[in-house]
C-alpha cells in the first residue's frame, strides 16, 4: 500500500479536469492505497455545500481524507463545510511530505 497526497488548487466550477483528479483519488483508494486530498486556493470552493460538494463527500465516505486549506477558506469567506471535509493548516502538506507521501499538485 502506498500513501498519496493529492493537492487540488483548481476550482471545479471552472475546470473539468478537477473531476478527473477526484477520480484519481477514488481509484487509488480502490486499489488499496491511502489518499489525502488537500484542497487549496480555488480548490476550496468545492468545499462549500454546493453542486460539486457531493463528489467530495462521496470521496470521504469512500475512504479519502479530504482536507481544505484554512487560509484559502478564510480568504474566500467560507466557514461552513460540506459533509466529510475538514479545515486544516498548510502544515499538513509539510507533514505529508516529511512522512514520504507521494505528492502531486493539480
Amino acid at each position, binding site marked *: 500500500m502506498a500513501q498519496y497526497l493529492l493537492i487540488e488548487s483548481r476550482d471545479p466550477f471552472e475546470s473539468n479536469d478537477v473531476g478527473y483528479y477526484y477520480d484519481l483519488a477514488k481509484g487509488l483508494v480502490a486499489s488499496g492505497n491511502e489518499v489525502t486530498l488537500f484542497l*487549496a486556493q480555488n480548490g476550496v470552493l468545492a468545499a462549500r455545500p454546493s453542486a460539486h460538494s457531493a463528489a467530495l463527500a462521496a470521496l470521504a465516505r469512500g475512504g479519502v481524507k479530504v482536507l481544505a486549506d484554512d*487560509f*484559502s477558506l478564510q480568504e474566500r469567506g467560507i466557514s461552513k463545510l460540506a459533509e466529510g471535509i475538514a479545515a486544516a493548516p*498548510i502544515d499538513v502538506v*509539510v507533514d505529508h*511530505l*516529511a512522512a*514520504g507521501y507521494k505528492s502531486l*499538485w493539480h
Partner: protein
Amino acid sequence: MSKKTLAIALMDPPYESENLTTAFRILDVAARRGYDINVFAYEGASGLAFMRQSPHPNPVHGKDVAEENHPTTKDQVAALLSEAEANGGKVDWVNCGMCVDERGVNEFVPGTRRGSPADFHAFIEASDNVLVIPTK
C-alpha cells in the same frame, strides 16, 4: 521530529499566480521546522530571486512607497533563507540558467545560485520528498 530534506520545483512567475503564495507558505513551514530545502526555480519562477525588483508607490490610491508596503518576491526569497538558517536548516535555491538568460533576470538574491535541470535531478536524489508545483 527528525530533520528532513524537501525539494520543491516552482514554475510560476512573480506577481501572477496564487500558486506562489501557497508555495511560500509551504516553504515557510519547512524553514521554521529547520528542514533543509532545495528549490528549483524554473521558467517564470526564475525571476523570483531577481535582485532588481523594487517596491513601488500606488498613485491610484495616493500611497507612497512606505504606505503601499509592496512585497517583492526577492525579499520573500531572502526571508526564507534567513528563516531556515535561524532554525538550523539551509536552503539551496537554484535559478534555471537558461530561464534567467532568456528573461534577463540573472542578478540573484545572495545565497541563491545559477543552475540547470541537472540540479533538480540531484535534488530529487538527495531529498526525502519532492513536490512539483506546475503552472496552470
